[in-house]
C-alpha cells in the first residue's frame, strides 16, 4: 500500500489559490525530492500535509496509510507519524526545548501504545541523539528556537525528527542557510533515518542537498503544479538549465509532456 497518495490537491490561502492540482504517490522506503522556484507552492504543500488550518484544501484527496489525511487534526497527523521540519522553525520564548521534546516524544509514544519515558530515560535518549547531531546540551534548556542561528534551528528540527521517528518526514528547505559542515551533519541525521518502512519528502531549492540525501524521485513544482518528474538526474539537469527552463514553456504543456 502507498504510504501517501495525493490526488489533484488544490489548496487556497485567504481565498487565493496556490496549489492547482498536485498528484503524488509515495511508497514506504522512498525519498522524493520536490524542487521549484520561490513562490511555487512547496511550503504550502508541506503545511497542508501537516494540517495548517488556514490553508484550505479546495478539492482533491490525500490518503495517508489508506486513511483520509485531511480529516485528521494537526496533532493526530503528528501522532500517526507525519513530521514536518519547518522552513522557518518557530521561536517560542519561555518554552524550553527539553519540555517540548519530552512532551512530543511521550505524546507520540502514548499514541503508539508504548510506555511514556520518565525524565531519566528521556534525557539519556535525547543526549545520545544530540551528540550525534553535534549539539551541545545547553540546547535543551534554551527556549525553543529562540535566538538560535539559522543553522541551529535546522539542526533542532532534525533532532526532533530523529526523536519522533516519523513514518513520513517532510523536510522543507532544511538545507537553506547551512554551511557545508552543518549540511553534512543534517544529511547524516536524515540518512540515518532512512528505512524500508519510512518515507521522506525533501523540499529544496538547490540540488546540493541531493548529493547527500540521494532521492529516488525528483519532482519540479511550478505555480502550484508538478510540471516535471524524474529520477535523480532531473535535479542535475535543473541545476544546469535553471528554473527558467521549466517556467519558459507553458506550465501545463510541460506537465503534459512528462506525465
Amino acid at each position, binding site marked *: 500500500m502507498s504510504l501517501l497518495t495525493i490526488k489533484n490537491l488544490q489548496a487556497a490561502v485567504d481565498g487565493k489559490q496556490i496549489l492547482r492540482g498536485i498528484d503524488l504517490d509515495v511508497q514506504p522506503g522512498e525519498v522524493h525530492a520536490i524542487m521549484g522556484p520561490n513562490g511555487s507552492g512547496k511550503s504550502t504543500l508541506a503545511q497542508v500535509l501537516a494540517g495548517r488550518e488556514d490553508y484550505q484544501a479546495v478539492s482533491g484527496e490525500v490518503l495517508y496509510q489508506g486513511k483520509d489525511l485531511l480529516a485528521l487534526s494537526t496533532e493526530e497527523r503528528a501522532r500517526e507519524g507525519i513530521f514536518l521540519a519547518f522552513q522557518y522553525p518557530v521561536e*517560542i520564548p519561555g518554552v524550553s526545548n527539553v519540555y517540548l521534546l519530552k512532551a*512530543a516524544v511521550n505524546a507520540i509514544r502514548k499514541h503508539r501504545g508504548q510506555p511514556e519515558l520518565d*525524565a531519566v530515560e528521556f534525557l539519556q535518549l535525547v543526549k545520545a541523539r544530540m551528540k550525534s547531531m553535534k549539539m551541545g546540551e545547553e540546547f535543551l534548556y534554551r527556549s525553543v528556537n529562540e535566538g538560535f542561528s539559522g543553522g541551529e534551528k535546522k539542526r533542532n528540527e532534525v533532532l526532533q525528527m530523529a526523536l519522533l521517528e516519523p513514518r513520513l518526514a517532510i523536510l522543507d528547505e532544511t538545507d537553506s542557510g547551512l554551511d557545508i559542515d552543518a549540511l553534512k551533519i543534517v544529511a547524516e541525521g536524515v540518512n540515518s533515518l532512512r528505512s524500508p518502512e519510512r518515507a521522506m519528502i525533501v523540499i529544496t531549492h538547490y540540488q546540493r542537498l541531493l548529493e547527500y540525501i540521494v532521492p529516488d524521485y525528483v519532482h519540479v513544482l511550478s505555480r502550484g503544479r508538478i510540471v516535471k518528474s524524474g529520477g535523480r538526474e532531473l535535479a542535475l539537469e535543473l541545476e544546469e538549465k535553471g528554473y527558467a527552463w521549466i517556467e519558459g514553456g507553458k506550465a501545463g504543456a510541460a506537465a503534459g509532456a512528462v506525465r
Partner: protein
Amino acid sequence: MNETIERYVAEFRAQATRLPGARLPWLAAAREGAIERFARQGFPTLRDEAWKYTALGPIEKKVFPLAQADLGKVSEVGAWLLEDVPHRLVFVDGRYAPALSRVGALPAPSLADSLAEVLARAPHLAEPYLREAPAAGAFVELNTAFMADGAFVQVGEGVIVEEPIHLLFVSTTAGCVSHPRNLVVAADGAAVTVVEHYVALGGGGYFTNAVTQIAAGRGARVEHYKVQQENVKAFHIATVVARQEAGSRFDSHSLSLGAELARNDIATRFDGTGCETTLNGLYVVAGRQHVDHHTTIDHARPRGTSREFYRGILDDRARAVFTGRIVVHKDAQKTDAGQINHNLLLSRDAEVDTRPQLEIYADDVKCSHGATVGQLDDNMLFYLRTRGLEEGHARDLLTYAFAAEVLERIRIRSLRNRTERLMVERMAEAERLKELV
C-alpha cells in the same frame, strides 16, 4: 456628601479615640486632616483621569465596618509560608498576630515590628512618614484616618538584610474592611527585601485598603514584592509610594492574581541623581475580575533609569487596565526610561485598556514604550501541534510561557516556585504542565 461617606466619617468620630496612637497629637491631627479631605473629595469617579476605566460602585455602595480582629480565628498559616524566608509578620484582619509571626534577629538598629507596637513604644520612628502622609487620593486618606496596624521595617545605615521579610495579611471576616499601613525605611547604603502578601481564609467578600510607604536612602536598595491573592469576592485597593534618594535602587514586583476588583497604585519619585527603578508586574484575571495597575515614575532628578515590564493574561469577561505614567522634569537630563506592557487575551469577551502617559520636559532623555494586546500566536500553536501536542496542551503551555517571562524576574526562589505552581494549577492542562515547575 453621600451616605457612604457620612457613614465613614461617623465611624471615624466613634472610633478615633480607640485607634492606635490616639494620644499622639501629631497623629491625631494627621488622621483628622485625612478624614476631612476624604469627606470633601469623596471616592474617585470615572471622570478622574486616573480612574477612567475603573468604576468604584461596588465599593462605594456598601459600607464596610472596620474588621474587629479575632486573632484566634487563624491557627496556622502553613499554606502561605515561603520556605526560604525566615522573617515573617502575620496580620489577621489587619492586626498583628505575634503568635503566628517570627522575626529573627536583625542587625541593630534595624527593626521589623508591628506598626501599632512602634506607635505605642517608639512613635518618633514612624512620625516622619505618617505626619506628612503622601497626598495620593481618597483611599490613602481613608487609610490614614483608620489605619490600625501594619508592618514597620527599618534598616540601619549600611546594613544589608539578606533574608527577605514576609508580611502576610490574612483576611477572615466577610463584609469588613482593613486598612493595613506599612512603612519600609532603608537608610543610606542599606538593603532590604519585603514581600507584602494578601490572602483570605474563607470565601466571603471583604475590602482591603492598603498603603505602603517606602523610603530608600542614598545608595540604598529596596526590593518590594506585592502578591495579591485575595479571594474572588474581595475588593483590593493598594497604594505603594516610594521616595528614592541619590543612587538608590527600588525594584517592585506586583503579582495580581485574586480579587473581584483590584487596583494597585505604584509610584516612585527620584529625589536625587542616578536613581534606578524596575517595576515588574503580572496580572492574571478570569470570570468577571477587574484589575487596574496605575504606575508613576517621577524622574525629578537627572541620570535616573527606570524600566517597566508588565504582562497580563485575561480570560472570560475579565477586564484589565494598565497606566504607565512617566514624568521627566525639566532638569532631569540623561533620564533613561523604558516601559513595556503585553496583554494576552484568551477570550473574545475580555478587555484591556493600556496607556502610556509620558510627560517629558527635559530634552536629553531616552524614553521608549510599547504596548500590545493580542491572542496566542497561531504559528506557535501550529508548531507545537505538529509535534503531537494537543491543542489545549499547546494553548496552556504558551499561556504559561507568557507569564513565565515575568515570573523569571522573581528573585526569591520559594516565591517564584509558588507563583509558578499557582499559574500551573489554574490551567486546564495542569497535569501536563507540572514538570515545568
